């Protein structure tokens, strides 16, 4: 992980920070975007959350203790920003979890940047029925193709627990798709 080490050094040095931050954003923007998008679903919301994520990274990079890898720290911030974004919106609207999920699906159908067919829309509906963590694990494994070890670092959960969550999620989605 020499590259990550070099990038971190440059990020924590005042003179090289600006250029290094640009490199960091350009290196991780797509991966983090897709991670965020699969949580908030709508493109405009994902764009807002992605920007918030990088701003938080910029503010926090000086305090990054290197206790975890850079990518897992970035994913963790992106995950927390996305979940916080949804919870804030839910609190402001005063709606239940289920109503929030229905609203998200509604906004997805109206999103011009969702060109999924019926089965893909059903897949999103199936995902909304999962507990938060199972949904995260499934998206990270199935669509983002992260390794269990990587997901384990990001979500700070054991690999064994993640495997169980993933297979449980896959079974539930499969059952939902068959029933509907």
């Amino acid at each position, binding site marked *: 992980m020499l590259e990550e080490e070099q990038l971190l050094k440059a990020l924590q040095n005042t003179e090289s920070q600006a250029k290094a931050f640009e490199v960091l954003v350009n290196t991780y923007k797509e991966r983090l*975007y897709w991670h965020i998008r699969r949580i908030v679903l709508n493109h405009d919301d994902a764009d807002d959350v992605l*920007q918030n994520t*990088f701003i938080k990274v910029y503010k926090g990079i000086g305090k990054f203790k290197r206790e975890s890898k850079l990518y897992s720290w970035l994913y963790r911030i992106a995950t927390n920003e996305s979940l916080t974004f949804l919870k804030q919106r839910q609190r402001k609207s005063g709606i239940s979890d289920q109503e929030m999920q229905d609203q998200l699906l509604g906004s997805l159908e109206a999103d011009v940047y969702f060109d999924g067919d019926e089965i*893909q829309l059903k897949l999103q509906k199936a995902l909304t029925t999962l507990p938060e*963590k199972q949904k995260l694990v499934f998206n990270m494994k199935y669509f983002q193709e992260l390794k269990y070890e990587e997901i384990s670092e990001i979500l700070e959960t054991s690999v064994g627990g993640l495997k169980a969550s993933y297979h449980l999620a896959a079974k539930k*989605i*499969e059952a939902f798709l068959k029933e509907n």
Partner: protein
Amino acid sequence: MKKNHKNKFKTPEGYFDSFNDRLMERIVEETSGIPKSDGFAVPEGYFDSVYPKVSQRIAHKPKVVSLSEYKKYLYAAASIAAMVVLFFGLKGTQQPQLQFDDLANSEISSYFEDTDIGLSSYEIAQVVDFDAEELDAIENATLEDELILEYIEDTTDSYDELNLDYEFEE
């Protein structure tokens, strides 16, 4: 197990350790009927616009007061605001005397949002002469949960520690 010394083929490190996982993943993909694409798209050229937008926001980010500072000196700051508002209010209109209770929290908040008072909370505390009873009231004051939540909602992005401690539901 007997080692086959005649076998000159090699496999990547950890290949057999991860074989079961990879097999299970393939089985899920190929037998579950779950589509491999989820239908999300982005506007053309979107990713090229990310860094310019982020750097622009960083350049224009307003300074935010920390929560602990805010909580500690809220009452002192609110008193200053009340005095300033009362002073100008009375001077201009000679209306019946206003009380601190007449001020809505939103008015106090807007005052601080719209006005650069140029003093740190510490400086305000130095200037304002509180007696022991008032200081006691400030130190032991409790803020309404609603007020704290409202403040956190508006300025969450400056509290990494609140956000990063998020616990996932199992």
